């Protein structure tokens, strides 16, 4: 009780400091300013080959000051809440903006927005930070035990991650927004090996934790032990599986691979800052140039892609973005036609539209950027079983293994952990080392079916990179499996 009370006092004091900082900023003649105080807590647990690999707990806290002066931006930040240092950082942000203004030949257009006073907390049932570490570790050890039952499983890893982020945002327009997010997730993998033949299977996703805005109840829902046996057996089976044949064929991608496909070939190119060239030096540009808006056939009529920052459980959900604009659900692709970008207050002026609220910063010391919220492939009408039954000859590709796409987001190549042969509407043998490669508009143009709501799932990716200095963002994708015709697939070369 005493501990909770002291946290509450610190929080009240921090908020008072942030309000006072904004008051000072407004007196300095800035065009616009916002301040974000962010506190992040991350707990990570990992068991590797039946041994604890990592138990760590991280807390990170500070404030970021963004100012617009004379039509140019400046940003400064700090983690020490001392008056003298805060004053210094306010002066620095203003100085940086004025320097930019002096050499920039164009001024930033930044339309005013109404002030907002709001408080928001993401939903959860069980606070994961209040669940005993013993309980979490037992879950991971038991998963490892199940995976390691077969000697050909060379290593097994099981991991849990929990995040708690609180944000307090104020701006010179009078907004005061407090938001709190709890996220939980995990994954496990089994690696089977015989000499240089090494095959991996993962659940529910590969390379990192699958996360949701949820509490510990989501870890129970993931039910690692229930899936461990299948994952282990599939890894073993792949050791003896033939290589995926090289051919142009029909492919069905599972839900997670679809999430990656949407992420790389729709989410990123629809970011308006990329389109306008802001990310040329790092992430790249976009093939979705301004002339394509509302005219370009991005995919077949089956393809409906939305950006939904209100999606329940999605890690790209929030009430307000880091510019104080309310979360929205927008259509990016409607029946295959490209219809909107992800935008900010500044970039939306290029389109003579209002921001659709996608500005987010990884933490207090980062500038907000246009980021994917939850970019979703809307479900179709048929079930996955019906789509498979309707496929004469093809491949069902599951669980991402490798990914690569060019800087304009056109030429891509993905690999998955496993491919299942489809013959006359039935899943047959497994293939190892599958890849598929294509070009974005051709690929989406050949989408012949999207599975229905029964297999629609909210995926959460914790590591979307963008910006310089680089920022890693949590983004969501709700997808179901989908089918594509005449796609080049085959084995790695």
């Amino acid at each position, binding site marked *: 009780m005493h501990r909770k009370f002291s946290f509450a006092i610190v929080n009240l004091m921090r908020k008072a400091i942030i309000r006072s900082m904004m008051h000072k900023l407004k007196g300095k003649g800035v065009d616009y300013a916002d301040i974000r105080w962010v506190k992040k807590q991350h707990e990570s647990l990992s068991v*590797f*080959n*039946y*041994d*604890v*690999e*990592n*138990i*760590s*707990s*991280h*807390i*990170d806290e*500070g404030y970021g000051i963004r100012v617009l002066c004379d039509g*140019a*931006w*400046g*940003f*400064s*930040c700090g*983690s*020490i809440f001392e008056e003298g240092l805060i004053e210094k950082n306010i002066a*620095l*942000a203003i*100085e*940086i903006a004025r*320097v*930019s203004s*002096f050499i920039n030949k164009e001024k930033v257009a930044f339309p005013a927005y109404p002030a907002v006073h709001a408080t928001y907390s993401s939903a959860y049932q069980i606070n994961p930070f209040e669940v005993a*570490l*013993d309980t979490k570790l037992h879950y991971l*050890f038991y998963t490892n035990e199940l995976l390691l039952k077969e000697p050909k499983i*060379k*290593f097994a890893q099981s*991991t849990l991650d929990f995040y708690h982020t609180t944000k307090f945002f104020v701006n010179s327009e009078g907004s005061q927004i407090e938001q709190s997010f709890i996220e939980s997730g995990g994954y496990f993998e089994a*690696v089977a*090996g015989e000499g240089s033949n*090494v095959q991996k299977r993962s659940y529910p996703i590969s390379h990192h934790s699958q996360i949701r805005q949820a509490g510990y109840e989501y870890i129970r829902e993931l039910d690692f032990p229930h899936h461990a046996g299948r994952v282990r057996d599939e890894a073993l089976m792949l050791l003896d599986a033939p290589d995926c044949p090289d051919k142009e064929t029909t492919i069905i991608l599972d839900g997670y691979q679809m999430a990656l496909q949407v992420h790389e070939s729709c989410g990123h190119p629809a970011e308006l800052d990329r389109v*306008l*060239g*802001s*990310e*040329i*030096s790092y992430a*790249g540009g976009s093939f979705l140039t301004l002339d394509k808006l509302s005219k370009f056939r991005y995919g077949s009529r089956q393809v409906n892609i939305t950006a939904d920052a209100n999606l329940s459980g999605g890690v790209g959900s929030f009430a307000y973005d880091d510019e104080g604009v309310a979360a929205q659900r927008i259509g990016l692709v409607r029946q295959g036609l490209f219809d909107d970008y992800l935008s900010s207050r500044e970039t939306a002026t290029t389109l003579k539209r209002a921001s659709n609220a996608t500005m987010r910063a990884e933490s207090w*010391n*980062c*500038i907000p950027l246009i980021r994917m919220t939850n970019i979703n492939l809307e479900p179709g009408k048929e079930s996955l079983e019906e789509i498979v039954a309707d496929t004469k000859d093809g491949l069902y590709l599951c669980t991402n293994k490798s990914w*690569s*796409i060019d*800087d304009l987001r056109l*030429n891509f*190549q993905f*690999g998955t952990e496993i491919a299942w042969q489809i013959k006359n509407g039935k899943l047959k043998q497994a293939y190892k080392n599958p890849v598929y*490669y294509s070009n974005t508009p051709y690929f989406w143009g050949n989408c012949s079916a999207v599975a229905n709501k029964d297999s629609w799932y909210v995926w959460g990716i914790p590591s979307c990179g963008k910006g*310089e*200095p*680089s920022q890693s963002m949590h983004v969501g994708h709700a997808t179901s499996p989908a089918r594509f015709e005449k796609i080049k697939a085959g084995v*790695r*070369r």
Partner: protein
Amino acid sequence: MITAEWLKEKLLPLARTKEADKAAIVFMRTCLQVSRFANSLIHQHMQDEDQTVYFRVLKDGRIGIASTNSIDEHNLKEALKRALALAHLRLQVKEKKDIPFFKPVKAAAHLYSEETASLPAQKRAGILQRVFSGGQELGVKFSGNLYNGESTLAVISSEGKINHHRYSLAGMKLIATGAGSSGYAAQANHDIHKLGIENLADTAMKKCLHGLKTETLKPDKYDVILEPAAVAELIQWLNYIGFGAKSVLEETSFLWKKAGRSITGEEVSIYDSGLDPDTFILPFDFEGLSRKKVYLIRKGAAGEPLTDSHYARLLKLKPNGHASFPDDTGGPVGYNLVMEQGKASYDKIVASAKRAILVSRFHYINGFLDTHRALMTGMTRDGTFLIENGIPKSALTNMRFTESVLEAFKRIKYVSRERQTVADHLEGLGSACVPTLYIRDFNFTS
């Protein structure tokens, strides 16, 4: 400013906690000032200053890790408490862990320039104004970044030892764009005056202007000239998938069971050395151990992997000082990678090409396709040219390669005498010093 005295006064007493068998503290602080620009306008302009204090505590063979970015005494003590609580959990332990003893290493004072560490926004803007003006005359616009700042790394042991390293850093990345073409140049140094900004601007602009006439080649095998930025990306992926001891233990590394055996051509020698002056020197690792020079590939033969104290024990090797961040589950990695130089000059390499593709840099390489062969895929970007009879004939539209880097390294025709230090402090720690390579029959797939 965080000094060795501050570390001794504030953090050493915490490292000497009586509630653990051993403890160590890792302190990392970075101050960056970044002018980021696009279309010759500064659009993201910032100062970022932060630190992380990691506590690693050992109890009965178990390690607990906690960190905070606060240097407030109360918050530091709270973080230590959290680490202790994690280490005190009653868990079954298969392999007992340890925190190694380390000896202090000599600090390198010459790597710090006060002017570079604290160069103000106005000075950076002045530099950029000159670069932008130069481009304007030729119809070229610039995107990229110019940054400066400083970094401090320290490791403090419960025995009272402190390793402390402070250095200044600066870098510039330029993408010159115009009429659908782009050209790349980048450089990093401890001293902002040694970035050679005029040369960088010239290189980026020349590449951009050479790219105005573009043709497309069909996917096939072509000889390639890979410039240092492209070579560094391949070697960083080798580092990621195979140089570290964890990947050897997991049997996924191309070094696994290959020690002393040929895995590339004899022209290839790659090592990691924390004290190599052609990289951003990091004299000790995150366990405080001296970063030793380790040959990963020597004259084409597989060397030993990079280890920390834990993986060295598991592989029955000696630790060679390559521990990563305390909570990094990826295992040891190299932060100072060097590929040894060859004899040919860059100009001779280009002049020797009857028909070859010159690659300035790659984009979005992925090396998870087959880690035993180091099979990777990726795209070319920002300056891909067809060289015929030693002369650039035209620019090429970007192409995808899918290639085993080990097999490609068996087909090296030339390694350049000149090398470049490739580092990007806005992306992360680590640097590589690499030459230009001429490789025969590089596999482009789409």
